[in-house]
């Protein structure tokens, strides 16, 4: 019998996370005379630290759709926050598997809340390395819904719909690359 680690989405963490959405960070990254805009934490100039989740995603040619969606959903600065996060990062191909028009629809300004809900369903506030995942686990995601983990033939599958195909460690958490987009359970 495999040990089940219950990962509880702590309300405080969620609260912090959500409240950060509206926070405009003012990290200065200009010269003494140059004006700084109200750029957020993702714009901090830092080549010395390990790459954070945003920099990893931006640097991946397989994740241009995800990055565009994160920008549209105002989640870029959030994911540059200290976290820690685990992000399940669907590839461009994963987004392509969605029914035609779904993504275009979600990218519309009036659908921003839906897009945020879906993207936040790909994030949890704990840095979970690959060996943490066990068959039957439930993980609380940032949007408030749960996700289930299954392990089949050595593969880690989420909600029976997306498989982890690679992992990258970032300064503020883990990025697990997945081959499908996770859709939050339909509200009753």
């Amino acid at each position, binding site marked *: 019998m495999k040990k089940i680690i219950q990962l509880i989405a702590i309300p405080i*963490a969620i609260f912090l996370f959500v409240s950060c959405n509206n926070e405009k960070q003012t990290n200065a990254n200009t010269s003494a005379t140059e004006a700084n805009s109200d750029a957020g934490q993702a714009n901090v100039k830092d080549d010395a630290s390990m790459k954070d989740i945003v920099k990893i995603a931006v640097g991946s040619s397989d994740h241009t759709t995800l990055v565009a969606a994160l920008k549209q959903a105002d989640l870029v600065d959030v994911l540059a*926050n200290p976290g820690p996060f685990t992000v399940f990062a669907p590839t461009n191909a994963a987004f392509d598997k969605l029914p035609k028009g779904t993504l275009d629809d979600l990218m519309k300004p009036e659908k921003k809340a839906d897009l945020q809900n879906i993207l936040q369903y790909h994030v949890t506030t704990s840095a979970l390395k690959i060996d943490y995942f066990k068959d039957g686990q439930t993980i609380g995601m940032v949007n408030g819904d749960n996700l289930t983990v299954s392990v089949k033939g050595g593969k880690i599958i989420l909600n029976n719909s997306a498989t982890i195909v690679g992992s990258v460690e970032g*300064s503020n958490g883990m990025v697990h690359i997945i081959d499908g987009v996770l859709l939050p359970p339909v509200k009753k």
Partner: protein
Amino acid sequence: MSKLSKLIAIIAVGAVTFITGCKPRGPQSAVTGDAAQKTYIAPGKYDEFYDFVSGGFSGQMSVYGLPSGRLFRVIPVFSVDPEKGYGFSEETKPMLNTSHGFVPWDDLHHIALSETNGIQDGRWVFGNGNNTPRIARIDLKTFRTVEILEIPNSAGNHSSPFITENSEYVVAGTRFSVPLDNANGDVPINTYKQNFKGTVSFIHVDTSGRMNIAFQIQTPGVNFDLARAGKGKSHGWVFFSCYNSEKANTLLEVNASQRDKDFIMCVNWKKAEEYVKAGKAEKRNVAYAHNEYNDITHSATSEIEKEVLVLDPKNCPDMVYLMPCPKSPHGCDTDPSGEYIVGSGKLAAVIPVFSFTKIQKAIADKNYDGDYDGIPVLKYESVLHGEVQKPGLGPLHTEFDADGNAYTSFFISSEIVKWRLSDLKVVDRVPTYYSVGHLSVPGGPTRKPWGKYVIAYNKITKDRYLPTGPELAQSAQLYDISGEKMKLLLDFPTIGEPHYAEAIPAELIMKNSQKIFRIEDNKNPFAALGDSKTKVERKGNEVHCYITAIRSHFTPDNIEGVKLGDIVYFHVTNLEQDWDIPHGFAVKGANNAELLIMPGETQTLAWKPDRIGVFPIYCTDFCSALHQEMQGYIRVSAPGSNVPITYSTGKTEPAGPVAAK
């Protein structure tokens, strides 16, 4: 069109009236209308200058931005600092070791930024330990104290750490003359004149910044106060002000003020180097601590050095001269050209300005006014460029701008006076609130003053801020000196007592500022460079816990098998490789400390449990959304217990046996 301009004129007049009408009364009325604009740094914008300010009796150095007056950091130097863990962690404790043992609190007075060709270069900043004589070097990549060198044959290291124009030396003149370290010190105090001697030390700084005492010069038993190195044409010389040429050993406030003139001591250090090379220095047996912090081992070492070379001016002609200077000189400042040396007699009615060219001529002509304990005294008139007449009361210190102006602080008349070096005429004066001590112009002591501001570091605060009981924050005041008249812009409170300060353009430092320590470079012998390297080991009654910290847990976070009577060493390695993500570490009941660990660093807390039980550990620096979850437990069993050493993270089955009550 004319209608419009008329309207504008009316509005303008109205605005002027409004501004005038709004001018507050009282001390604030010295502030001009655009002061707020000139000191306002919008959120996200940077200040133009870093300002390194001595923390005085706090023993620390603080870093402010100018012109905003915002505090960025307090750098612990000569005192323990709970905010940084400095002096508490096992790794940093050796930094405060001295020949007297561990000294947790000293008094830091003066600042010297490193220079190349007489221009600030932003590599290091030096500070003096005034009580237990020491010099500290702070690395401006990390803003940390990386070296502290004790000064033997010294007592009250006040005349320090002034620097030569290529950072060849920092100097350290003793405030107190004393029986020197290898002499019999058990003598009556009133045998001062026979038994008490002074010294000035020349501390060599190598290209890596490492300090060593190249030589000391033994001097008559006077008190050294301040000093400045020559620059440009006077490079190769250092000028030390001294008081108590009366050699009084009691009630100095009266007894050291008898003579009309004391001295500024001129030292030709290039000549001194020749004498050292020629073997003229005497090797003396002393003991002084030399402490260094290493950013690779993340640990400090302290070694006691045993020898120092001492030159006696009696055996070294042409090395030391004395210039008479009125009434207990305090400041002794060289102008950017190196030609003028400004002496500030605390009790003098004039400011004498000496000429380096004239000093050289007087030496060549042997234009002496006798000698003092065998050291030639140069004739006052022969070395004088001139005197600033009636400048104010109680002159203390002088700084310079790049346009030939000098700025002198006056304690008694509580003002800054601007005067011209060329004709020694006073051109402006502004009050300070209250009783200014040191003052500072960015780059003011160098060959290249950056100008723009003068900052007054005041001794008395009284009613300047909201009252906070008997003890008030010290106050600094920022003045605009870009025009002919000085303009007060800002008050800001400081840490401890600000003595001297030096400001430097931000761009000379900020680009080199280090963000993290690379984990692969960590050579701390107790580092755990990854969760798989964590362990808990017993060595006799010592239990060593090699712990890692990363958002948002410790590995291990459950530790058992410690027994009462053990000493537990928590060696915590912060695995983060992310700027501004330190972790803290605390254990309940620790009598000595907590830890603060920078990204990539290892720090150690020694803990002696005092009772049986389970003790929480947790991260004390809010690191992440799950910071509050970053915690664990350590179990302490009875001395004879058979609970084995076990440790884990993420393991929930009970393992160890329960001790019988």
